[in-house]
């Protein structure tokens, strides 16, 4: 397996190289540029603009710009400086990462806590009222757009429902902490609730359905029948024997979804004013802040490649039937 892992890692290098060049070209090919507003301003002379372009290296041929970016990125780990904020891109990303990491991990934890039991129970009692309810809810969860759900949560828990003791809204409408107050863990958790629920809803729906069908397949396996025949409790059959196997494909899915922990969740971050990576990406895309954009996109590319590999390796660890040659 180490050979396999090494081979896959080496294969990833040309993929990422090609990817970085294509992304660089696409980002630069988008109309407009970081200086679009200044270009439109009649009080800014062409000479001023030319100087600034020269300073930012925007007037060089694209392959030169890419070459410089690649050398800095690959050799020095330097992601450059944001054109808009004139700050190191790495600083900006590090500021945003904790927020995104917190939100997306919380959503995954909530998702696992709800989707695994729900899927297992639904599969064990197919076509029961529980199963039907879960089916309905999960279809709703998959169909409802996140931004709509987010607004509805704000409407219910921020505008309608009040804390009976303080008269304050039950949950805040956004942000990571109460404005003007000192930050503490409780305040942070209080702010985390609504965005986590909004973000996990879609995941819960998807994963519970997935687990249900995976469980249904497993429950027809011989070893499940054997377990029942030798008098194991239904609980042991379900959770000890069936669920553990049903979770296998779920691990792959989860590994492929995990890069979101770093890339963020744009819609939820927007609705709940959550200062995460999704918004950093969005703002950079709108402002054509090339260095930030390229860095965020590349981090995602690396993560997706890495987690793909991770999922494949993990699968081998979890399932002894899988062999790497």
């Amino acid at each position, binding site marked *: 397996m180490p050979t396999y892992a090494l081979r896959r890692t080496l294969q990833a290098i040309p993929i990422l190289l090609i990817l970085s060049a294509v992304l660089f070209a696409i980002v630069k090919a988008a109309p407009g540029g970081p200086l679009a507003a200044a270009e439109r301003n009649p009080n800014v002379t062409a000479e001023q603009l030319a100087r600034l372009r020269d300073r930012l290296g925007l007037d060089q041929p694209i392959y030169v710009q890419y070459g410089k970016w690649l050398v800095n990125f690959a050799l020095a780990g330097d992601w450059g400086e944001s054109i808009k904020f004139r700050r190191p891109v790495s600083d900006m990303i590090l500021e945003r990462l*904790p927020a995104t990491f917190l939100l997306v*991990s919380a959503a995954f934890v909530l998702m696992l806590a709800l989707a695994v039991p729900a899927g297992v129970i639904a599969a064990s009692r197919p076509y029961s009222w529980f199963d039907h309810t879960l089916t309905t809810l999960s279809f709703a969860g998959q169909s409802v757009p996140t*931004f709509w759900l987010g607004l509805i949560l704000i409407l219910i828990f921020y505008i309608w429902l009040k804390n009976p003791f303080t008269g304050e809204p039950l949950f805040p409408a956004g942000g*990571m902490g109460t404005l003007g107050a000192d930050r*503490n863990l409780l305040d942070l958790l209080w702010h985390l609730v609504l965005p986590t629920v909004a973000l996990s809803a879609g995941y819960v729906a998807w994963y519970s359905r997935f687990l249900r069908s995976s469980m249904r397949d497993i429950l027809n396996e011989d070893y499940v029948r054997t377990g029942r025949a030798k008098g194991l409790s239904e609980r042991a059959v379900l959770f000890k024997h069936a669920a553990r196997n049903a979770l296998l494909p779920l691990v792959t899915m989860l590994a492929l979804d995990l890069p979101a922990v770093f890339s963020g969740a744009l819609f939820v971050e927007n*609705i*709940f004013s959550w200062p995460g990576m999704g918004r950093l990406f969005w703002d950079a895309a709108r402002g054509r802040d090339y260095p930030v954009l390229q860095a965020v996109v590349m981090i995602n590319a690396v993560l997706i490649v890495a987690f793909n590999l991770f999922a494949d390796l993990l699968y081998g660890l979890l399932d002894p039937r899988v062999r790497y040659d």
Partner: protein
Amino acid sequence: MTPHPRALARLALGLGLLLAACTAAPTAAPATEPTGAPVVQPTAAAAEGQGGAGGQIVLIIPEEPTSLNRYLGDAAIVRQVADTVSGTGLTYVDPAGQYQAALAAELPSAANGGLSEDLKTVTWHLKPDLKWSDGQPLTTADIVHTWETIANPDSGALAQTGGFAEITSIETPDDVTAIVTYAKPYPDYLGQFSAGLFPKHATGAPADMLGWEWNLKPVGAGPFRVTEWRAGESITLERNPYYYEVGKPSLDQIIFSIVPDEAAQEAIMQQGDAHVQLWPGADKATYDARMAGVASQKLVPGVWNLAIDFNLSAPNDGDTGAGTPHPILGDIRVRQAMAHAIDYDVLVDEVLGDQGVVHSTNPFAYGWYQCDLPRQQNYDVEAAKRLLEEAGWVEGPDGIRVAQGVVNAPDGTRLTLELQGYTNYDPLQLTEEWLAEQWKAVGIEITIVNYDFSIIFGSLSDGSPRKTGDFDMLIYDRSFTIEPQQEVSAYFLSTSIPGADNPDGDNYFRWVNPTADSLIAAAGGTFDQAERKQAYCALGEMVQTELPQLYLYVFQDGYGFSSRLSGYSVSTWGSMTWDIQNWQLAP
């Protein structure tokens, strides 16, 4: 190994640790601490104020400002925040469009000896005992530093740069006197230092301005100073105890909260958790109804005018200049007919009823140079048709007119024109479609072509149609600044037609008119406001008659204000926070 409930428990535990780490980690750069300097307690200073109740307000902005240095760029969002910290300079513009003294003791003028006879030397006096927000003295050395920075071509300054390059020297006989000498008279000398000053002791070398730490943590002369900036989330400011107006500001703390989603913004305003909302999306009636008394929207006409540029010269003839007349639009009667064919009332009140625009067909619609210029071509379909007939455009079989004895076009030419705008801007698209309908009713066929913003406003080397002259009509929003001479010259001088020799020219209409040229020269040849206004108004009237441009309406700026706030006013020339030192919060 398979996932085990215990593994999940470990994951949850790890998350808990992470939570703790997140709260402990500093999220953003720490605030400007007046290190070493004696700190006047804000509360003590507030006590000696004018009886303001103090308090804390939250201002909602949709995106994060990229800096608090107004010279770095023109983004409106920067100004909203910078005006509370670093945007206080020698003067400011009042809602009537007149300069008033801020840090300056008075406005230099010929009458008080502040302006030399040859108009080239301006003497500024600072108010006595001014201090920066860190308690250091604010002197004329800071004025010199500001000039040296902005005039330095390597500084990267892109906004408010007018006039700095023309200053030849600044003498500072003492800490409160600065004698500014220009190479040639500069009409906007009063606005020279109106966007804020740079403190010499707290910034850096002029050539490094792009990288100054000051840009995000400014020591300023404004009513507030930054205490905390949480990236992507909020910017907190406290009362600047050294602010020059005694007893102001009334508020103790202001927090800019970055809330991108419009519905969330409204929810927060409606609950009273925020007190000011920048640019609400809903129109005033809808907004006020939703806020149910908690807040209401205040509107003020902005500086953005929607207008059509007619190309008076032939497009696609390889000539960027005014050589050959446009086959259709080269005839003034066609342009007049098109102006007559528009029902301006329906356009503003119905088509754009909820887009926050106001009636205005006046090229000089605001500022000290605001002219009283009634519309010359009122909605009159018959007049439009008559003019087109006179010009030789007769109705064809499908209702669209064709040429028959037209001056610049061979017989049989179809009366069809292209209207070019930019994409993704609702008011613009609604207007284009409405105009196409209105013109079709008098027999003019319109093709609407919308480009990306960057193409329509591109440069000559990019092949932007307005620079190359390869278009029939353009439609977009444009504005004049408080000192319009440079923009007026760029638009209307016959020497400003863009081309290889003059890529920066903005006379897209290819309008050549010696009288206009002399009026612009007259406006630029004096500092006398009344005289200048007269020249601009005469020019405006000519534009309305000859129609190189047709003005349609003016956009308004809207701000949501909590009903607990008072003392504020909205200004065409200011950001929403331009007078925040006067705001008061009722309990």
